[in-house]
């Protein structure tokens, strides 16, 4: 086989692989939306047939109408904007602290002994029950909302980081010791890369946790935000709007998931792990 035909064959292969990849992505997108579509169609049908009480279940078409109205009036943008800012700030703060304290506790037996039991206790305290403390300390302005969200984002990243570090292979740690990695280098060049699969799962959980904490945070004297919108619509029986809110939350979950998957594909390509 001459080199040129070989190169051609290879090129062809590459082109085919590219196509293949695209068709694969399309296929998996179609598969992914099958279930939601089935649910939507069933919902609309049952709703239109009057089997599902509209009062409780609304229906996809009503929800879409409500959504369009909200978008038209500019309310949606204002709710979304403020909620996004709160969630992102909270996530940034809580996630950063979770990672930081997770690393400290993961690396130092002593800080583990001092801090971890308390953190494990705080972890299960329902946020709903401690909002008074937040109001007392931080008022009901943006600060307390962001802090509450940060608290929600803190735990997943803390736990995953901590566990991730503790699962790092001791054999590799010994290599780093032999090369006299400084403590910082151990963390940044060994522990964090090795724990990355776990940390990324933590990011995924923290992102959605931040988002879910909005519902609680926006109980604290808010007058805008997606969480507020849901609460408010609930107390006036605006089922359509409640569902608009729920769907926004669901989408946020999907988006955060895709985001982290994208990160995983780029940051973890070194992994030689099981891929169904």
């Amino acid at each position, binding site marked *: 086989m001459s080199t040129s035909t070989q190169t051609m064959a290879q090129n062809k292969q590459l082109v085919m692989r590219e196509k293949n990849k695209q068709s694969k992505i399309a296929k998996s997108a179609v598969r992914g939306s099958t279930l939601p579509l089935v649910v939507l169609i069933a919902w609309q049908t049952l709703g239109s047939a009057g089997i599902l*009480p509209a*009062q*409780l279940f609304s229906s996809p078409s009503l929800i879409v109408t409500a959504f369009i109205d909200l978008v038209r009036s500019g309310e949606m943008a204002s709710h979304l904007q403020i909620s996004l800012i709160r969630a992102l700030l909270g996530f940034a703060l809580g996630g950063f602290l979770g990672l930081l304290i997770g690393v400290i506790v993961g690396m130092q037996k002593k800080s583990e002994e001092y801090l971890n039991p308390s953190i494990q206790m705080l972890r299960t305290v329902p946020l709903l029950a401690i*909002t*008074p403390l937040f*109001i*007392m300390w931080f*008022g*009901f302005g943006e600060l307390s909302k962001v802090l509450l969200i940060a608290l929600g984002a803190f735990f997943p990243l803390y736990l995953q980081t901590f566990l991730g570090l503790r699962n790092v292979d001791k054999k590799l740690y010994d290599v780093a010791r032999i090369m006299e990695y400084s403590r910082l280098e151990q963390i940044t060049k060994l522990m964090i890369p090795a724990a990355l699969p776990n940390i990324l799962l933590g990011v995924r959980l923290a992102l959605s946790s931040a988002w879910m904490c909005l519902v609680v945070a926006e*109980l*604290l*004297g*808010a*007058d805008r935000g997606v969480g507020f919108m849901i*609460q*408010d*619509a*609930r*107390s*006036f*029986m*605006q089922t359509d*709007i409640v569902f608009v809110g729920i769907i926004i939350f669901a989408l946020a979950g999907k988006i955060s998931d895709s985001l982290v998957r994208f990160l995983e594909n780029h940051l973890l390509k070194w992994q030689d792990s099981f891929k169904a």
Partner: protein
Amino acid sequence: GCNSDAGKASGESEPVKVSIALNGKMGPLVIAKEKGLFDDEFSKLGAKISWSEFPSGPPLLESLASNRVDLSFLGDGALIAGIDKKLPFEVIAQTGQGGSSVRIITQTDGKIKKVEDLKGKTVGVASGTTGHVYLIKALKAYGLTTDDIKLINLQPDDAQSAFETKQLDAWATWNPYYLNNIEKGNAVALNVKGKILAPGANIARTGFAKEHPEIVEAYLRVYKKAADWQIDHPDEASEIYAKETKMPADTVKKIITSEEPNIFFTEDAIKAQQESIDTLASVGYIKKSFDFQKEIHNEYIDAAFNK
């Protein structure tokens, strides 16, 4: 909580920051806010409003206890709980008698026609709310107690769901829930003999009221102005509320016209409130009963309107 540092009452220097909290999306305060009714009175006093909004009483009380709320209004449940807990607020006026804000509604199949029929039936109510108090009183009027019925503790949304799917025979609830269900033909209201009132109240944080009685008085004047405007312009008021709550304007209109706001405490209301207090004390929600009359601080309302 920056109100205390504005202590020098000599209004010129810095504006006094007044935190007014909305409790839900209904009530004359919403109108006052929308129409800017506070602007005049408050700018004269050098006061600046910071608005906040709470979906219900309990988080509002928590904010008040941490000095984050100066002026607001409460329903009877939260009001009683707050006084019982000796939270630092004063009752400065009524909001309304609450004669039509709570009802027991039943399924339309006609199985339950009178209160006695509730015996052994499944009744939904959110524990500790004004609806709960109403239910206890209504039962008591017919010699029944909550032990005679199957009481299910449900928050309004959940109760709505349970009621619509006929898992509840009856539901003690407030507006907009009960009217909404009746309007839609899902429910009928149960007649109860006598009048069971659930009066709400305007409140002021004690520390704030001591320092700035004039602002409290101004607040009451504006509140009354807004209430009067609502009485005089029910259609326009309905429009405002409908926009806020996204409820149909005619439903809103029914709600606001079924009873007029009234900031002056009435004998009936005080009596009703006292009964509620005794009822709650007997079921153990509050530690011990107290005299409601003694908790009312009429000095502000007197100063505001009778000078």
